[in-house]
């Protein structure tokens, strides 16, 4: 009986072997008129307005389009559904001229009514979405006015410079979703159980198949409006497939198995891929530094330190410029890069990534790793080891002891914390490292403010106003002291003013000055002490043509083709 089973197993093995031949994989990738990529998680919705995670917005990013899109190379808005735009002298009324002859995937014409409808959905009370609070200017929703089928006016209470960078949200079809918005069922539309042919956009691809936890498949929209210089139809590839692979290791194996055209390797895989690049027929591109930031912040919220009429000494240390500057000099960024990114990274200086070529301030002097300078600053501040136990005390004799936290399970942040602890111990600080699970961490940051020092990170974007929730003193993500009624310090008040001015200044060149000023203040006052930035790579089959990846996304992805 056992032998029969083994025989059956062998038969299955041989059968399967004939199917999954490796060279066959490469052939399929190269010959097919289809780009195969992988994504780490399932979309949660196909309604782009309701998406709150990147997997959901990525899933339909080629199905829908906005009025404009940010060109990842120039980082400027370029025409998509709008061909041109202008604003009046006051800067409060914008007129968009819409592209003519564009049709929805179901053949209906695209008109200004669709744009007005999308704005109405964004500002609808019953539709929670992330575009709303960005576009609430002066606390008021924007109004729209359809001038003719291909012209629309958008009116706002005050001039709002981030408008063009924020108006790239996906335009939705009124003839499909209009009834749902009217009867209040909009949030239940286009869930992941919707048949793909019902998802109607104007984009270069249509969604044709979704198998949960397995793949998303797209087919070219033959009626797409965009043309290349020679007048050829775009997009060039007939199909796109996105495999859903929830495990990063598995994704890597699939790339090695020639199932994917592209892969964004982790730092530890880069050398391995470089060695195999010839065999795998790939090129490995350094696409630049990551766009977000990783930093260590100290809690400056008096609410945390005042108990029973007494104020904890830690508040005085953490708001002392000498103390935080000593900290900024105190850790070895090179060793962080070696240990967490296998050497593929750069020390971070500003809160804005250097990849944001418009708004990054290149004139800041980095805080070098210099334990001597750090010791000197601490001595000057009166933090000395007075009793010879190896731990410094402040002028009142309180030992410098505090807690350092980050979210448990994030390996990069955990390693950064252990390096910080090591260097800070050398300085004579007593650090208790305590990783926290995410829910506890959120509770500490937003409800009870019970934390001392925290390693945190945020994603970045081209539009600097997108971080206003973090920078403004009244913001709920103003980590070191959130939701302030009035700015606690003069420099926080100045940042508030600069943010305000930056949002009102419509001249792009003048606008930059405000954000440079904010970066200067942040660099001087150090509410977020910047750590390191990872260098990003993309491994891609070398027979992909016109494939231009950047850290901000692919440049003109509709041009990507496969060289036969």
């Amino acid at each position: 009986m056992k032998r029969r089973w083994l025989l059956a197993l062998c038969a299955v093995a041989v059968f399967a072997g004939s199917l999954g031949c490796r060279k066959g994989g490469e052939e399929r990738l190269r010959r097919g008129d289809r780009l195969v990529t992988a994504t780490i998680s399932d979309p949660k919705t196909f309604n782009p307005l309701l998406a709150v995670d990147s997997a959901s917005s990525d899933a339909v990013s080629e199905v829908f389009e906005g009025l404009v899109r940010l060109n990842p190379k120039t980082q400027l808005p370029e025409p998509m559904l709008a061909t041109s735009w202008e604003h009046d002298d006051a800067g409060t009324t914008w007129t968009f001229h819409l592209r003519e002859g564009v049709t929805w995937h179901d053949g209906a014409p695209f008109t200004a009514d669709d744009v007005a409808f999308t704005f109405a959905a964004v500002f609808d009370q019953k539709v929670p979405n992330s575009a709303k609070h960005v576009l609430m200017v002066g606390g008021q929703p924007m109004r729209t006015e359809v001038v003719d089928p291909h012209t629309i006016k958008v009116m706002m209470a005050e001039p709002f410079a981030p408008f063009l960078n924020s108006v790239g949200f996906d335009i939705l079809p009124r003839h499909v979703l209009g009834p749902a918005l009217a009867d209040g069922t909009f949030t239940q539309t286009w869930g992941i159980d919707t048949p793909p042919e019902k998802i109607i956009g104007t984009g270069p691809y249509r969604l044709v198949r979704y198998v949960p936890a397995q793949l998303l498949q797209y087919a070219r929209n033959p009626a797409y409006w965009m043309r290349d210089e020679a007048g050829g139809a775009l997009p060039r590839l007939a199909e796109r497939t996105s495999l859903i692979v929830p495990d990063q290791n598995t994704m890597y194996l699939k790339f090695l198995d020639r199932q994917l055209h592209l892969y964004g390797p982790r730092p530890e895989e880069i050398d391995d891929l470089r060695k195999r690049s010839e065999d795998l027929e790939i090129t490995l591109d350094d696409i630049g530094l990551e766009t977000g930031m990783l930093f260590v912040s100290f809690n400056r919220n008096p609410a945390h330190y005042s108990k029973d009429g007494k104020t904890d000494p830690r508040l005085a240390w953490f708001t002392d410029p000498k103390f935080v500057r000593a900290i900024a000099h105190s850790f070895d960024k090179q060793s962080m890069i070696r240990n967490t990114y296998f050497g593929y990274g750069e020390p971070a200086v500003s809160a804005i990534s250097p990849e944001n070529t418009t708004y990054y301030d290149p004139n800041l002097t980095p805080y070098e790793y210099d334990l001597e300078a750090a010791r000197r600053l601490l001595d000057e501040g009166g933090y000395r080891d007075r009793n010879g136990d190896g731990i410094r005390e402040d002028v009142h004799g309180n030992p410098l002891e505090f807690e350092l936290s980050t979210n448990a399970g994030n390996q990069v942040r955990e390693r950064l914390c252990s390096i910080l602890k090591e260097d800070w111990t050398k300085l004579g600080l007593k650090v208790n490292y305590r990783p926290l699970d995410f829910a506890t961490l959120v509770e500490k940051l937003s409800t009870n403010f019970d934390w001392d020092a925290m390693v945190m990170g945020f994603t970045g974007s081209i539009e600097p106003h997108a971080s206003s929730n973090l920078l403004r003193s009244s913001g709920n993500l103003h980590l070191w002291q959130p939701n302030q009624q009035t700015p606690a310090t003069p420099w926080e008040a100045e940042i508030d003013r600069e943010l305000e001015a930056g949002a009102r200044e419509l001249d792009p060149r003048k606008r930059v000055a405000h954000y440079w000023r904010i970066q200067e203040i942040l660099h001087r006052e150090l509410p977020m002490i910047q750590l390191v930035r990872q260098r990003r790579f993309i491994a891609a089959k070398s027979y992909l043509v016109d494939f231009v990846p950047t850290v901000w996304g692919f440049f003109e992805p509709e041009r990507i083709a496969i060289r036969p």
Partner: protein
Amino acid sequence: MLRFVLRRVAQMIPLLVGITFLSFVVVDLAPGDFFDTLSMNPSISPDMIREMKVEFGYGQPLPVRYGRWLWRVAHLDLGMSVAYRVGVLDLIASRAMNTVILAAASMVFTWALAIPIGVIVALRRGTLLDRSLSFVAFFGMSVPSFFLAFLLMYAALETGWFPVGGTTSLDYPILSPLGQIGDRVAHLVLPVIVLGTGGMASLMRLMRSQLLEIQSADYVRTARAKGVPEWLVVSKHILRNAMNPFVTLAGYELGTLLGGAALVEAVMNLQGLGTLMLDAVRSLDLYLVMGSVLMSSILLLVGNLLADIALTMVDPRIDFSRLETTVR
């Protein structure tokens, strides 16, 4: 028999209410909620989170929410997932098929291998064969399943014998029907081996010890003494009597059928309930968690009932009147 079944089904209802209420409380008491991740996202305003909480009925007291959930469940509506804004039943249904296929296949694999091996090693107790097979079984049990999954996938990558992860290949829709079945089977082999080896050792050891115990029973000695051929002794007297615990076990396994195997599913890129539920628990997507708790509990209870009914069929010594007093 009908009376017995009806009574058992009636007993299930308070049990289910108890199980789901406890789970509801536990999920509710866990620190944080679904909106924690959103609250740390700079592009999401506190207003938006407030609106979403209203939309999903958060903020009402726990008994009210549980009562409402129960009321809806009584009408066969398991509520909506917060993350997906899709009915829980639809979500579960969309992934259930693959989980069931995988679980059933690995169950067949485990049982079909473990039981004959258990019989062989029991009959050849103490020989090299017994010891080496036991060693292999225990090795299979002690290797973590996700690690074995990686090892096998790496082997598949190096040899090209099996597909690396997934349940179907990209060309699946254009294959012939026979090709489609072959494609499915090819993708099933590795996961089935991974999931099957884990459970094999315990089943095999159970079979072995059952057999050893019964082999020394009086009726076996009697049968041998009156000259019954050895194969008849084994198949009719020993195996028949050794079956009872396996019938019960099979009932329990029905309950785990929809549970999925989250780690292996994630590593081997299989679409299943395991990863869906793991994500739901991690992100505290309350109604999705509750839906899965409900489904697994029902399956477990039904499996238990079926096992008891089956027991009376294979073992005439057990009758319903006795079962009723001894049921757990």
